[in-house]
């Protein structure tokens, strides 16, 4: 990513972005970049931060003002826009970091570990933001070692190992297990279950697994949080069935 941005020089080969050499700073006009850590000036507040980066894009004051307000609202930091970044939590810093990456309404967004160090809520919000950007037609390139997040938000992935590209393609195609079939149906009755098993046996097919699918921990956590906000005072009895009882 640093090679793409011209922060590092290649030891061999050449890097071009939008048809221009990576060392040509004018290519940055169309790029937004969120570094691994949000390397921002901690003595500035959110408004000042975005205004500063807006000025680096040579944006006129009126355009900047509108864009800064929109982005702060988009990342949900309106309530903290006057607070210096040194008072921000990790999640807030990542969100303002993403906002600075979008200040120029870029065509290409480079995100380096966008969800690292975030709590589940922050992670979900960040992923939702990325998906929203995708829906707006932006090209988002992210690198991450949190593979679940990658699976969640990416359409295409590449796998790099020791500096070499080992795999590249659409996620659904790369992850598809073509020699295994999965059928999901809601509330299957015991009779139907028996019939299905009989049909499979008739065709000589071995059942590899049979049971209820599990949800992800992220979904469980978010659901509990959502329900907790809807029904304050709820207590968990640890039944392990994914449901909590009102006491």
């Amino acid at each position, binding site marked *: 990513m*640093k090679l793409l*941005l*011209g*922060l*590092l*020089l290649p030891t061999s080969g050449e890097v071009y972005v939008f048809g221009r*050499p990576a*060392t*040509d*700073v*004018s290519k*940055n*006009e169309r*790029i937004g*970049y969120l*570094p691994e*850590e949000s*390397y*921002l*000036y901690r*003595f*500035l507040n959110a408004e*000042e931060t975005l205004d*500063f*980066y807006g*000025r*680096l*894009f*040579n944006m006129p004051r009126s355009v900047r003002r509108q864009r800064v307000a929109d982005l702060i609202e988009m990342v949900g930091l309106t309530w903290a826009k006057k607070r210096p970044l040194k008072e921000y939590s990790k999640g807030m810093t990542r969100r303002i970091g993403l906002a*600075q990456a979008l200040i*120029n309404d870029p065509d290409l967004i480079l995100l380096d570990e966008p969800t690292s160090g975030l709590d589940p809520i922050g992670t979900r919000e960040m992923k939702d933001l990325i998906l929203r950007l995708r829906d707006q037609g932006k090209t988002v390139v992210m690198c991450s070692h949190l593979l679940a997040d990658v699976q969640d938000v990416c359409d295409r992935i590449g796998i790099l190992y020791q500096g070499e590209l080992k795999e590249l393609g659409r996620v659904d195609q790369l992850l598809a297990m073509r020699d295994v079939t999965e059928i999901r149906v809601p509330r299957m009755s015991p009779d139907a279950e028996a019939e299905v098993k009989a049909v499979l046996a008739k065709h000589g097919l071995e059942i590899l697994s049979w049971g209820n699918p599990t949800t992800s921990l992220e979904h469980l956590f978010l659901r509990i949080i959502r329900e907790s906000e809807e029904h304050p005072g709820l207590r968990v009895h640890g039944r392990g069935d994914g449901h909590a009882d009102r006491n």
Partner: protein
Amino acid sequence: MPIEIELPQLSTWIGPAFLAWLSAALGLATLCGLIGFIWCLLLYGRRAPQRFWDLLRSGVVDLVLVSPRRIGALAWLTIKEAFGRKVTVVVLLFCVGLLFAGWFLDPTSSEPHRLYLNFVLGTTNYLVILLVIFLAAFRLPGDIQNKTIFTVLTKPVRTSEIVTGQILGLIAVGSFILGTMWIISYPFVVRGLYHTHAVNPADLRPLGEPVTLPDGSQGQALQGWTEPTWGHRHRFFVDANGNPRVDMERGHTHSVRVEKSADGKVTYRLGGPEGQLVARVPIYGSLVFRDRNGFDVEKGISVGDEWTYRSYIEGASQAAAIWTFKNLKPEEFPGDTIPIEMNIGVFRTHKGDIERGILGSLSVRNPENGLMVELQVFESKEFSILALDIPKKITRFSSVRVEPRKIKHANGTIEYVSLKPVDPKVLSQKEFDLFRDFRSSDGTIEIWIRCLESGQYFGMAKPDLYIRAGNRSFFLNLFKGYFGIWLQMVLAIGFGVTLSTFLGTPVTLVSTLGVTIAGMAHQFMRQIVTGELYPGVETPARFGPIESFIRLFTQEGVMVEIPRTLGLTVARAIDLVFLAWLNLLSYIVPPMDRLGFIDFVAYGYNVSPSLLAVNIITVAGYLVLLIVAGHFFLRSREVAA
């Protein structure tokens, strides 16, 4: 004049200075280009010429296509960060310094205004320069260390904009600090020097006989002394009309207000000091000497002083110092006289009356026809300024004559400077007009100074005698003094930021401090290299570190000959290498000692627009090169490595 260096004139300085700048810039560009090309060859092999050309072209494009808005944003960021680092504490430190300054600034000293001005300007100088060096050394390396530079560099920002923005931001911070100090220091100096004296009318004694006034009443002139304050008192006069006057003492006088009570009792109330905080405007002439045989020479004689700033003329001989002032116009001097001031050095071969100065004479001469009169005899004042007046209507004079000037060439032939004939009637005139009789058609007047006592010598340099054209505002001159510090500060910032583009904080700090200290000692450095420090010494290697150490160890002074052993020869050979490096260094580091105007302000001389312009252009020349160098250094650096 106490500013004992040759002051450059913009018109004569600009041409050679520009050529020197251009050759330095081209030399630097060639050297950097060569290093860059070799680097490319090592990295890219056969593709090196193409890569080098691409890098050079894009580097130049980035240097030119800068955006003021981006530079402004980066400058604003630097300001914001500096104030976040509590730079205003320096102003508080300065204020605390001023609060306690009264403990050690002695107002009873002979020239307290110099003491006060040197203190405020000197303190400001050190504080501000140190502050900006620290800020510059931490700014960019701090960004690289915190990696905040990554976010900036991934925007369409040119490295030239980063360097320029940081320099401008730090200049703005330094300007704010300096401006605040200027505002604070003015009342401190004025209030610190404020004093007055009481006058007891009963102590005044009659001076001369009573006179009858126009209204028929009797008037009596009085004289006496004021009461002492701060270790001095003033002679006090009251003329027959009752108008009081206070004599100048320690460079100042006081205004007097007369109050009469109902019973006719007179009280004299003196105001604060006047004439102490001034900004004299000197008009300088050119100086040549006449030797004891009456021939024009470029320099006077040496009396063995190692410091060759002044040349000496022998007393009771034909020797003279001749100042030529050009383009003098009567309308520039509205009064009846032309005030001149002198600061003449004296060398006595015998003590004489040590309480009394050495006698000298002042004459004026028309360079066109050689007409010359001696105007007055004066008593020299050593280590202080002697003020004299040349009347426009000359009625008191002596030795009217036509004085030829002659030059003796190396081959022994004597050449007389041609003169227009003088009407003999003129020589018997009883009154002369300075501008009519002694000014040539091109507006030139010569002023001659002679030493009248046998066996004594007057020493003079060009700025030692000048015509005082008037005074300018002291407040403004104090501002110029601070502006001189500002110029030094700008250069320190320029070097700090440029060095920080390829060095870490500690090394930047030490390097910038080194450049600044070397710059402050620039003149001294040149004197060592050229051997001017002790003229007559056979080799500048005598000032080298090895021989100096030998002399220190053997307790031999620099002027003492030591045996020429093989060891000394080797030591001098090594010292010559050191001196060659010092010579090179003296061409690289800026002459920061010449940028300041502290002595001008402290000694009460106006900083001329020409000198201001020379110093501004000097700083601008350095700054342009520093920005270009910083741009290429930062551009060639892998900040994420």
